[in-house]
């Protein structure tokens, strides 16, 4: 009897254990969870034009607030303004900016890392969009425009990187394994890919006349194309592209210098709108000085290069004084604080530049009168007498001077001009004892070279 009991008990033990094990198996599904409400899958984003729009919006917001073209003190305008001869730093506590001003940028510099990291970060985002749209066969609404914007942005981002860093990898995939071992490409190859993207974008993009010109359109692609041709001294194409835009584009030179940077300016080809209703530009906040001491001021060299009577000197240069000293600051944007309605946006492309591109390209080709026509349109609205130069070399010099005034503290134009004209050393050395020939390029971030040796060698001089 006792033995039977034991056997029964043993079976019961076994049974209980078996039941227990049974309950546990098939529980693997338990650890699957749904997505949180602040995230959606990459796949879902590219099913719908609305979410693709949102993905693009983030790129524009980044360009405005964080990446290369931002009007903040870590943008190209501000830093390369100091690096060249536009801005002079007054506050020595801004140590890392003083390295830019002193042309002592190290491969570990935070701002250099920022240019590079944010630039390629956005290139990844744009490549995701291109791949996402191209893999969607369901006939997305507004597919051409979305894709066109993405191609344009890819070219635009690479344009700044190639001009700051020289030979760089042109990234056109999201595959991180490929992108981990990429090599640098000669600048010509980068420009070639950039042009291909722009031609694609130009073909896809509609003529944009939407509210605020807040998105790049057909003509924005054309404008960047013109600039790209100019930088490569492909004068013929630069003149053609710029000329066509000036004639056919839905823009016109704003005749009042003080109104060029207003939101509704007819001259604007593409601008970035602020992040909130009534907001204005980062440039305004960065440069406008309400009381001394300012962090930075316009260099004496730049102030001296204004001709007497230049309306731009009056409208675009602000001044602040403590009673004894006067400091001058960029005053293209007049508003540092929000207003009831937005009055100013950050302009990335405007017709004025295209006139100067056309002028330069025509001058280079020896077409003096065509060139003068464009140049003098800019001079006239600045209330300056028309230029009557006849030799193209002198004209080229005058155009460069005009670009210095017209485009100062706008996204590194001055520095890029000095570089492409091979004049950087000659012009900058007198005021910048540390300037070396090799300073024409920024160093590639050291961390990049350490992780991906294919990016070696470092730019010369670093």
């Amino acid at each position, binding site marked *: 009897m006792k033995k039977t009991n034991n056997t029964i*008990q043993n079976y*019961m*033990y076994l049974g*209980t*254990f078996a039941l*227990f094990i049974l309950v*546990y198996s098939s*529980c*693997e599904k*338990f*650890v*699957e*969870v749904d*997505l*949180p*409400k*602040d*995230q*959606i*899958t*990459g*796949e879902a*984003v590219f099913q719908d034009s609305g*979410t693709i729009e*949102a*993905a693009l*919006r*983030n*790129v*524009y*917001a*980044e360009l*405005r607030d964080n990446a290369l073209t931002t009007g903040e003190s870590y943008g190209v305008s501000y830093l390369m303004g100091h690096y060249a001869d536009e801005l002079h730093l007054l506050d*020595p*506590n801004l*140590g890392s900016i003083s390295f830019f001003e002193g042309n002592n940028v*190290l491969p*570990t510099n935070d701002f250099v890392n920022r240019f*590079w*990291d944010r630039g*390629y*970060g956005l290139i990844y*985002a744009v*490549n*995701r969009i291109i791949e996402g749209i191209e893999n969607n066969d369901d006939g997305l609404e507004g597919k051409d425009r979305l894709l066109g914007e993405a191609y344009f942005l890819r070219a635009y981002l690479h344009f700044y990187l190639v001009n700051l860093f020289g030979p760089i*990898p042109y*990234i056109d995939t999201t595959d*991180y394994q490929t*992108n*981990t071992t*990429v090599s640098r490409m000669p600048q010509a190859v980068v420009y070639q890919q950039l042009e291909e993207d722009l031609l694609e974008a130009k073909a896809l993009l509609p003529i944009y006349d939407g509210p*605020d010109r*807040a998105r790049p359109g057909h003509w924005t692609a054309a404008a960047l194309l013109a600039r790209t041709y100019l930088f490569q001294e492909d004068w013929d194409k630069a003149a053609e592209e710029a000329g066509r835009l000036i004639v056919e584009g839905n823009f016109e030179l704003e005749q009042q210098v003080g109104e060029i940077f207003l939101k509704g300016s007819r001259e604007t080809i593409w601008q970035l709108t602020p*992040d909130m*209703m009534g907001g204005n530009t980062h440039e305004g906040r960065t440069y406008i000085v309400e009381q001394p001491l300012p962090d930075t001021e316009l260099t004496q060299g730049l102030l001296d290069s204004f001709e007497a009577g230049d309306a731009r000197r009056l409208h675009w240069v602000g001044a602040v004084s403590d009673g004894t000293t006067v400091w001058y600051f960029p005053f293209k944007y007049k508003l540092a604080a929000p207003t009831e309605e937005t009055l100013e946006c950050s302009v990335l492309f405007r017709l004025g530049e295209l006139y100067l591109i056309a002028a330069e390209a025509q001058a280079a080709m020896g077409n003096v009168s065509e060139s003068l026509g464009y140049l003098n349109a800019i001079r006239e609205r600045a209330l300056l007498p028309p230029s009557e130069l006849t030799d193209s070399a002198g004209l080229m010099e005058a155009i460069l001077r005009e670009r210095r005034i017209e485009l100062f503290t706008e996204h590194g134009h001055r520095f890029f001009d000095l570089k492409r004209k091979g004049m950087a050393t000659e012009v900058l050395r007198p005021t910048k004892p540390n300037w070396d020939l090799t300073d024409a390029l920024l160093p590639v*971030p050291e*961390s990049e070279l*350490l*992780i991906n040796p294919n*990016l070696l060698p470092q730019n010369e001089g670093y």
Partner: protein
Amino acid sequence: MQLATTRMRRGIPSMLLYAFLLPLFSFNMQAGTVLEPPQVTVSGTVTDSTGEPLAGVNLVVESKNIGTMSDLDGSFTIQAVPGDILIFSMVGYTSKSVVVMGQDAIKVSLEEDVTQLGEVVLNAGYYTVSERERTGSIEKVTAVDIEKQPISNPLAALQGRMAGVEIQQTSGLPGANFNIRIRGRNSIRSEGNDPLYIIDGVPFSSATLGEANASVSLPGQGISPLNSLNPNDIESIEVLKDADATAIYGSRGANGVVLITTKKGRSGTTDITLNTFSGMGSATNTMELLSTPEYLEIRRESYANDGVEPIPDNAYDINGTWDTDRYTNWQKELFGRTSYLTNVQGTLSGGSQQTQFLISGNFNGQTDALPGDHHSTKVSGLANLNHKTKDGRFSAQLSTNYVSHTNDLPYSVSLVLEGLLTPPNAPELLDENGGLNWENSTWQNPLRHLESTYRSSTTTFIGNARLVYKLFPELELIANLGYTENHLKEDRTELSTRYNPAFGRGSEFSYVIQNMGRRTSWIVEPQLSWNHDFGNTRLSALVGASFQERFSDRLSLRASGFSSNSLIGNIAAATTLDIISDVDRTYRYHAIFGRLNLNHKGRYILNMTGRRDGSSRFGPDRRFSNFGAVGLAWIFSEEALVRQTLPFLSFGKIKGSYGTSGNDQIGDYQYLDTYSFGSLQYQNGFGLYPTRLFNPDFSWERNEKMELSLELGLFGDRIFFTGNYFRNRSSNQLVGIPLPATTGFPSISGNLAATVENQGWELELSTLNINTGKVRWSTSINLTVPKNKLVAFPDLDGSTYANELVVGEPLDIRKLYRLNGVDPDTGLYEFHDFNGDGEITSIDDRQVVKSFSPEFFGGINNSLSIGKFQLDLLFQFSKQMGWNFWREGSIPGSVANQPKAVLDRWQTVGDMATVQRMSLGNTLDPLLAYYNHRNSDAAVSDASYLRLKTLSLSYTLSQKGKSGMGCEIYARGQNLWTLTDYFGLDPETMNNQTVPTLRVISLGTRLTF
């Protein structure tokens, strides 16, 4: 089963309260009564060895389910049959059995149990184990010690009491975090090193629900959820350290496990305890700063050095604008106030043999050392109920814990730093009307920070039920059920009044950031436990499963555009509301675990544990992983040979363990390819950005633990020694694997073949120095010598960790410049040019490696009782390096006060000085030298300390057993005295931007009815 149901039917309803709390169990299981021989009434008294009556002694008739308890005067009566054996037992006393011989008055005296080694039962989480027979490394602190400290965070009670457990308070502000590292830092990610907290069987997340934009006041991760526990409600805290103890927690055991057990009722008389104390605290230390004449001297000197002449109009401190004779001790004004502390705890506990309960309520109020009116108010309640059926087949343990905590602080952390830096002759804080004095806009009044406030309200609920049913005598079915809920509401209010009114900034500059976070979690853990005795060998087996879900969500808003500051309390009055974040996270977790313990002759013990874990934090193919450990112990003192040859050796054990545990602290959803809603807007719409480069293939961090240890008890365990050697290796590190930015991201989450090793020695010695009837003096010492090392890290140089880590060095290192001294010619700091390029540049010239890991740490505890006096002294010490004051502060010579050390400064060519020439900070060379100095080995120095952590003196006026009311009065102190050479505020926080730990003195009484 037939038998069981019959018994259930026979059950009678009892215990209304119990039924109310657990309507599920409307029946009661009770033993049947069988025919018995005629019974007699036996009565008697129980006393202790000195003849004092003992109340609450358990009294059981062996082999029957009859029991009772002695009364206040030690008397008892019970029904028994001659020949029955009565067993008397009570915690802290050796049990005694007496045979009923028909005598009508039994007199029993119980001996105090000196060693208790065999009786000390340790909570190992899923099972319990006796101190004597454990194979794993488990440290324990009990209520007796916790209650001796006037603290509000339970982790504070562990400081200095446990070998291998390093605890650091991060600030002297109420609600501040404690850093805890159990056997060192295992993970390269600084956020992946927290232990697992289990409160009464329910995992408790220590991660803050705070919003970074709202909760800056407190260093670290904002307000600590562990503050939501009332230390006075804690019965014991056990810390599991080695593989044997932690492997059963699998993927979450890598950093150790902290088990917190709340107080439970005891059978016996019903006790009402009222424990009240109040105290005062102030900063443990202030720095020696310059007097006004000294300060003015260096300021004038720096103008001369920098060639600025004449003294400009804005040099208010020295040009006569401010009174040059004024002196204010700003440290005292800005963080040297007295804080007050009040704690009231009421507890009602009691119960019968079958049912015990405990209900307690606590109020804890604190103010801080900052100026202004800030309160931390904590109200908590605990209710625990245990029940066991008469036949002992079914038992239930219920516990609920509720805490509500409100904490006010100024938002800004700058008050402390400004206390150090404000010039000694700076103007009055308040004007004659009591408003902020801006002294004609010549300074930034430090009290402006009080116009920015931070308030957090936390509520925490923890509920747990543990149900045990004996299916068969040797087989138990156990269910552990738990639920927690945690709410946090934070308000950061920035008033425009923090600006100088001369700027005319009105309420449009005021705003509020409000954050509401919530976390709920539940756990269900069915288990089966089987114990069997094979004669010489005892076997215990356990299998169980765990299902857990944790859900948290958080909404943070920024409200601005108030038409008046008086409306700021209500965000409905804001004209602009921005959503900062609106996020939710779900975490699910599933595991199967088991334990097999074999104990042969009470001498040879084998313990095997294992766990299979699955976590929602990993990709579909990587969710599950196995962990396990083996522990072995040999109690060699039980061997006949040892007993004969070494009679003084009362206990000797060698044990060792080896196994693995894991770490999944990487955040939720990291493996997914997702887009997130950005905070950036464009054209009135939010953006979507790719959240990360996704890697669906990453998995657990693996921690391999090994331990060897020796325990020796001499002379009846009056001297007891424990020595452990451990070596843990954490590999498969979950880190962001560095990528070049050309991929679009700096890293991708993945497992890197990097290995971190923690090894070390832990030594504990406890001695009972004197033990006569009236005097008892015991000492315990613990010492930990840890060594942390990064063993491997592929491609370290190219990673984002390149500036932080060095292979072969600890994880907590800093790479620094080497200060050569002050150049006698230039008067500037000079640094060693390691790469010889003529310039001092980061990273190449930052070659000096200083480790912030402690070399050793520990504590010394002395406990002395003489009659009715009880004195406890706990010293805590740590030998370590840390950032000193030079890391913070301002360039010497600028408008900022300085430590006295700057007086040894360079003044003229040829001076050999330790501090560089005074400078205003406007010229590049002195400024660069100063910045490099902050990043040099001069900014790191010895931060070792010996601190009298706790002093407790109590006097027992009367005992409940004798007079019906127990009364104890006590005085307690925390951080009373510190011995250190640290150059800075506090070697414990090593942070000159927050309030140093407080020196607290409290007085209290404890009444028991």
